[in-house]
């Protein structure tokens, strides 16, 4: 199964991958809301996240995760296009989106377009 490796130390948060994804999937259109990859932000850090499948198993086996002195809900890490979240859902139609890796080969358009090399197909 293809996976995209993300190096958050390299990401500049420019969201070029979002533009690339929507240009590749929707003809002649640039719209980050229709992209299957979104750049999330936590303080000064930016990390791109690709849309994953929405399955019930992930929700039913939810638990709390402690990192450092903070407790996180599993939802904070989940990348499913679930109805609870505003992203990975096509805004105009409400259809959930899922990353298809642009039908590799050669490699997904976000990986090819990334300016800093933060994304890598493994």
């Amino acid at each position: 199964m293809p996976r995209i490796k993300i190096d958050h130390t390299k990401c500049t948060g420019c969201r070029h991958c979002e533009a690339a994804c929507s240009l590749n999937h929707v003809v002649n259109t640039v719209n980050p809301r229709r992209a299957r990859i979104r750049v999330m932000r936590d303080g000064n850090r930016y990390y791109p996240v690709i849309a994953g499948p929405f399955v019930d198993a992930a929700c039913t086996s939810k638990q709390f995760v402690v990192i450092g002195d903070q407790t996180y809900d599993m939802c904070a890490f989940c990348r499913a296009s679930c109805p609870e979240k505003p992203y990975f859902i096509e805004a105009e139609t409400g259809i959930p989106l899922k990353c298809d890796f642009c039908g590799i080969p050669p490699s997904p358009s976000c990986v090819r377009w990334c300016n800093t090399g933060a994304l890598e197909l493994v």
Partner: protein
Amino acid sequence: MARETFLVSIGPAGEKLLPLANLVNDRFLSVGGAGIGAVMGAKNLKAIAVKGQHSLQVADGSRFVQVINTLINKLNRAPLTSQSMPQWGTTFLVGLCYQKGILPRNNFRSTSQPLKNIGTEALNSAFALRGRGCFACPIACIKKADVKYSAFEGKGMVPTYLAIGTLGFNCGISDLSAIGVMSVLCGEMGLDPVATGGNFATVMELVEKKAVTPEELKIDISFGNADSMIEAIRLISTKKGYAKRLGQGGMAISESFNMPEIFMGVKGLSLSPFDPRAIQGMGLHFATCNYGPHYLYSYTFIDELLNVHENLDPLETQGKAALVKRYQDTSAVVDSLGLCNWPLMGLKFNNYVPMVNSCLGTNYKADDLLSIGERIWNIERIFNMKAGFNMSHDTLPERFFKEPIPDGPAEGQISRVKEMLPEYYQLRGWSKQGEPGLEE
């Protein structure tokens, strides 16, 4: 969280209608210029938020992708846009400007200072740098500070060349972490760094010339005193008591003490940190710019200082009028397109044209776009003239014509703007009084 709403707002300074007030967006970038914040404050408008979900249509998607990829490859091959800018942001200009004697010190009265505390190496050790790009930018010149300093935690931005030059060296301060704190404070208070720096440089020279004593101001403000300047930046945005006098802008302060000649600015706005005596083309731009003396409205330093496209001597006046006109038109049209001018350090303006055409489905040529830029510039000029500006405002402070640079690599130079101005008017097709014809 991926954010869907973006906003630009004024700070406390804008609410108090300070003439130094600016807009600050939620990425901690000052946008606009001095006074815009006061305009919004006067209309009781605190912030503008934008959200949207509709798509942008590109006329010819496959060609657009192809053009963008070529341009990005070009940028990645150019040394400035692939190494200097991504690594240090605009701060790499500090060392270069110092070497050419362009970096001003002590309210434009000197250009030399000890270099060990400034420049890119000091920056690397003072801040943990982290690149941050505007939307889809391959350069990512905004430098965020990681949590190395408490003042920067989570939100800070490493000071840009503008902030280092105006808040720092022009006020005699060469401590990078103090400049960083001031730059962050300006962002939090909604102050414009250029106008704030010029304001305090004027006050400092007033104190030095004994026009006003520190006791009267109730704050020990003088060249090189970083702590009191940080305190003063905090105070002026409250606009209470004696702080009211400090924050009224460099021009108003110098006039209230009957010394208007010590305010270093054009059309009421403080100069960007380029000494116009040592870089003549930028001097002509400072004198003629519609906005005021801001270096980002004409990127002449790309050719004069960095020698990217042409190898020009900053001290020469030959051909500078044409250079200034070309870059002013370029930046007018590029700003109107919503694009950035910094890639001009790796691209020519001609490279922008296929990008515009494939996106909009038009058939512009480079000259068509430049003539649009010229029209924009003329309309701005006509607006300014209706608002009361005329040829007598197209000049620099008297200091740049009378006092040569006392030290540094460009020693003995004076500004020769008055020689270039008639040629500039002629190239623009304006009358000898600098008035654009109505038919343009």
